[in-house]
């Protein structure tokens, strides 16, 4: 199927596109979850039978079609319980979409391998830049979480992945995170979004440059994510960006945008940092060890693999 809904019932169906998925779900759970196998899966609701639908081809080109599509998940998912009877009578339960994609294979070429190894070798630089870009304090633990998310989403196989956009792509493959208890730098985009809110308290954190996000009273329903990665040519110049979103949710659990900021992806910033004279200053053994641990060597070139998406 080519359309999905956010919630069961009379919800509006949307075309299954990367843009729609990200704008509408903000990459929040349970739309974006990591499975037992450590792989990311993307979910919506079937427009016809209200069953969970796995969205395929959002980030990697499928072998059999150029467009992403939805396939009935045929078992319970966090987003909805599988209803066998509804499924059997669903007009989209056509054999056309069944049983052919589970075994599809991708080639891992030198290009993807090199991006993977660049992430591993320069993870410390990437995290340093991310702290600058987002204004978030990224501890070793949080950095490890970001890397696991990136690997679960197989970000290095994403068709928009390049060497220079590695820092931004690390964020782009993360499921939404709550702002609660995060540390933000004064003046950063997130700080500006939060400072006037009545549901948020920003508390100076120890003797650092950071403020810790606390709730003003009730449960703090605020999360952030990085969505809508786009590359376009404007006046013969490449313009690449990703959108930083702050969002809450309505009574049905559907995400509602509270604030957003477009982050420009500068194609020189990351390579310049790596090759700068001061680069040695930003090396971080702890982060490199994390990358080493989480990212084993890849199989040899040309080895077939079974992707999750």
């Amino acid at each position, binding site marked *: 199927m080519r359309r999905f809904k956010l919630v069961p019932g009379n919800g509006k169906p949307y075309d299954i596109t990367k843009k729609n998925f990200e704008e509408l779900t903000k990459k929040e759970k349970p739309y974006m*979850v990591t499975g037992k196998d450590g792989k990311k899966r993307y979910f919506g609701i079937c427009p016809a039978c209200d069953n969970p639908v796995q969205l395929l081809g959002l980030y990697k080109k499928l072998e059999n079609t150029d467009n992403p599509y939805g396939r009935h998940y045929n078992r319970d998912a*966090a987003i909805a319980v599988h209803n066998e009877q509804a499924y059997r009578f669903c007009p989209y339960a056509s054999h056309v979409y069944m049983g052919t994609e589970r075994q599809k294979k991708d080639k891992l070429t030198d290009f993807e391998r090199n991006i993977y190894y660049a992430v591993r070798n320069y993870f410390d630089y990437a995290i340093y830049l991310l702290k600058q870009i987002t204004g978030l304090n990224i501890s070793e633990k949080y950095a490890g979480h970001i890397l696991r998310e990136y690997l679960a989403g197989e970000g290095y196989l994403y068709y928009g992945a390049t060497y220079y956009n590695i820092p931004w792509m690390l964020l782009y493959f993360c499921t939404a995170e709550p702002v609660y208890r995060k540390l933000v730098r004064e003046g950063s985009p997130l700080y500006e979004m939060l400072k006037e809110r009545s549901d948020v308290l920003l508390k100076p954190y120890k003797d650092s440059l950071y403020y810790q996000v606390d709730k003003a009273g009730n449960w703090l329903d605020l999360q952030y994510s990085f969505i809508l990665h786009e590359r376009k040519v404007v006046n013969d110049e490449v313009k690449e960006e990703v959108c930083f979103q702050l969002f809450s*949710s309505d009574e049905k*659990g559907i995400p509602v945008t509270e604030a957003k900021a477009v982050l420009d992806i500068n194609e020189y910033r990351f390579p310049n940092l790596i090759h700068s004279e001061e680069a040695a200053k930003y090396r971080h053994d702890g982060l490199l060890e994390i990358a080493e641990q989480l990212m084993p060597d890849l199989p040899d070139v040309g080895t077939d693999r079974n992707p999750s998406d």
Partner: protein
Amino acid sequence: MIMDNAENRNQIEDMQNTVNNDGRAADFLPETAVLETEVERILNPDAEDFLWFGLKKGDVHFKIGLSDILMCLKFAEEQGEVPKLPPVWWTRVSSVYPKLDVFLND
């Protein structure tokens, strides 16, 4: 997270096995610790728990984090010991307490 999830899952399976294989008389009560009134809130950005509840057994004092209590609640819900909470509630909570992902992710 992957490792954590596997550990959490084992914990849940162990709990289920304990319930299912319990051959003792149903009214045989276990030894318990007593809940103390003191609750600590520690907002460490890297911690998975922020609320800590005091327990006491004899002279021994110790703490249990809210995420473990939520795990127990989820377990009780699945056993039908408490009414079901809306799935949206659990996904909200799991965004802050990732331990609960074990129930969300297939």
